[in-house]
């Protein structure tokens, strides 16, 4: 008895076996099992996948709005770029190849194209800040939407379909973990420090030798890359995309998830995205009134907890071990 307890304590002690890596591996195996043997019904699987996609989106927006302290309201545009590029690739180019490797390649390509658009958006951010930059990002998302509407070969305003349902739970889990991992390492890297410095005081950061231009460019590229990835996954989950899918309402939804969970916190983004997605489903019995109750809850949350659920704090297991006691991550 004592031996078992001892064993359990040893296994569950944080850092030894029970760390982020083993949890990720176990989660991936679980996700594979769930989708292979249908351990959960389709509705719950869909909900889990939506949570994963929303976590990716929220993290990508949090990088700009939370960590860098800028205000982007156009992330739906990056998402649209990723969704359309990856869908075009799987439907037209890779149609004859095995989806096992064609699908991740397509999603990756969607992310890369979105990243390039992010690079273009980063250029105005050198000079403009705050509300004006918000307008720049909004304008870019509207331009992306407008361009798609004017290309007839991808369906124009009618939308695009024909994708197979390639997004499965293991894939969503994989991309979510990859996103969390890369964004965490990015934030605790040298560039990440630069991003935080830009948020706190751009002039001081500049004077201290942070190349604010490079930092902003990199942040926008990484952020829009992951928004594009989420778009690709979303397109192959819902199997229908149209320019109307990626409008201001989608961007607003992302903003809500970021600020619900708390800015500048990975754990906050995960919590915010999950809480929002689950709550939206839980309120479904209210029918048409659900979207009226949801924002009321949000307003109440903001009045009583203005910094969101986590509010700049970070879960301990998301902080690199060398940082934990340094006080940097507070």
């Amino acid at each position, binding site marked *: 008895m004592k031996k078992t307890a001892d064993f359990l304590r040893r296994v569950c002690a944080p850092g030894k076996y029970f760390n982020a890596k083993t949890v990720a591996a176990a989660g991936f195996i679980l996700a594979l099992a769930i989708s292979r043997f249908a351990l959960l019904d389709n509705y719950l699987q869909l909900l889990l996948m939506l949570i994963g996609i929303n976590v990716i989106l929220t993290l990508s927006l949090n990088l700009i709005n939370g960590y860098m302290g800028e*205000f982007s309201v156009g992330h739906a545009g990056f998402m649209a770029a990723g969704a359309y590029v990856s869908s075009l690739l799987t439907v037209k180019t890779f149609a004859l190849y095995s989806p096992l490797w064609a699908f991740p390649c397509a999603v990756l390509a969607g992310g890369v194209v979105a990243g390039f658009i992010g690079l273009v958006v980063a250029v105005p951010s050198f000079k403009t800040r705050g509300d004006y930059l918000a307008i720049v990002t909004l304008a870019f998302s509207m331009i992306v939407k407008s361009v798609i509407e004017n290309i007839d070969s991808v369906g124009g305003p009618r939308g695009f379909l024909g994708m197979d349902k390639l997004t499965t739970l293991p894939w969503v889990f994989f991309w979510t973990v990859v996103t969390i991992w890369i964004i965490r390492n990015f934030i605790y890297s040298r560039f990440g420090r630069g991003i935080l410095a830009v948020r706190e005081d751009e002039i001081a950061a500049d004077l201290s030798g942070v190349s604010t231009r490079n930092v902003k460019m990199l942040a926008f590229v990484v952020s829009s890359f992951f928004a594009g990835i989420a778009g690709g996954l979303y397109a192959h989950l819902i199997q229908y995309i149209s320019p109307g899918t990626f409008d201001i309402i989608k961007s607003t939804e992302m903003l809500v998830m970021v600020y619900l969970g708390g800015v500048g916190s990975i754990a906050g983004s995960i919590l915010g995205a999950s809480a929002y997605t689950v709550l939206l489903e839980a309120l479904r019995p209210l029918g048409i009134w659900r979207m*009226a109750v949801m924002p009321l809850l949000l307003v109440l949350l903001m009045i009583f907890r*203005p910094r969101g659920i986590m509010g700049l704090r970070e879960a301990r297991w998301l902080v690199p071990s060398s940082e934990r006691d340094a006080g940097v991550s507070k």
Partner: protein
Amino acid sequence: MIYFFQQALNALQLGSMYALIALGYTMVYGVLSMINFAHGDFFMVGAFLCFVGASRLHLSFVPVLLLSMGGVTLLGVATERIAYRPLRNAPKVSAIITALGVGIFLENFTLGLNPYPKYVPPLLPSFSFNFGGVSVSSFQLATIGISIGLMLALHLIVNKTKAGLAMRAISADRTIVPLMGVPVDKIIALTFALGSGLGGAAGVMYAMAYPVIDPYIGIIVGWKAFISAVIGGIGDIRGAVLGAYILGTVEIMTAAFLPSTYRDLITFSLLLVLLIFRPRGLLGRAEIQKV
């Protein structure tokens, strides 16, 4: 040429509507330095009040206009009191998110009450004048005339009254002015009242020009009006009006001379180019950063 003048008249009409909404954004921004993202939805509520007044209560034009303006004024003041005032000292983003939340609430609350798009019956007798080939409808005349009248009234309030002086003072310095005995809460409430009232009037004008309304009209029109305010330099009242007429002209002219699906593309591209060269808008002052 007559075609051009006809379109210029349409641009004036659209610009007037944008100007009324943009004024609400820019005034609130002036006193609170906060973007009231729910403002576009205040405008939408104004259009729906117009529907209620015209088709349920069978009122004529002037009572409907007063009903919309009064209702939206109350809504604006109440929103400020309930949702924004507790957050005045909170981080700026919480106030923005609250505003977004209020906006989504208004949209979907209205959707719950009116699940189908509504048709607003014409409020004015429909006739048109002819000026050398350019025909001016009674709706256009009313929209442009009332907008300009309201803007002049606003101009007088802001520049000639004591409350207007207090408003300008708060927008110039928000730390010192309260110490001088200016009742900040009252002035901010008044600003919301004026801005929302103009938004309500714009709702009536929208319902006259595009009689089929749904709860989501506030989103895109609101953002366009916000863009007008930014083009002019947000926080600047003359800038908002200028920006609105520029945006109205660009939108109507691209739709008139190019395929209309290019309208948003060209509008937003122009906006980007403008912001690259004038990052603080046309009339906005350069922000002085003290280190």
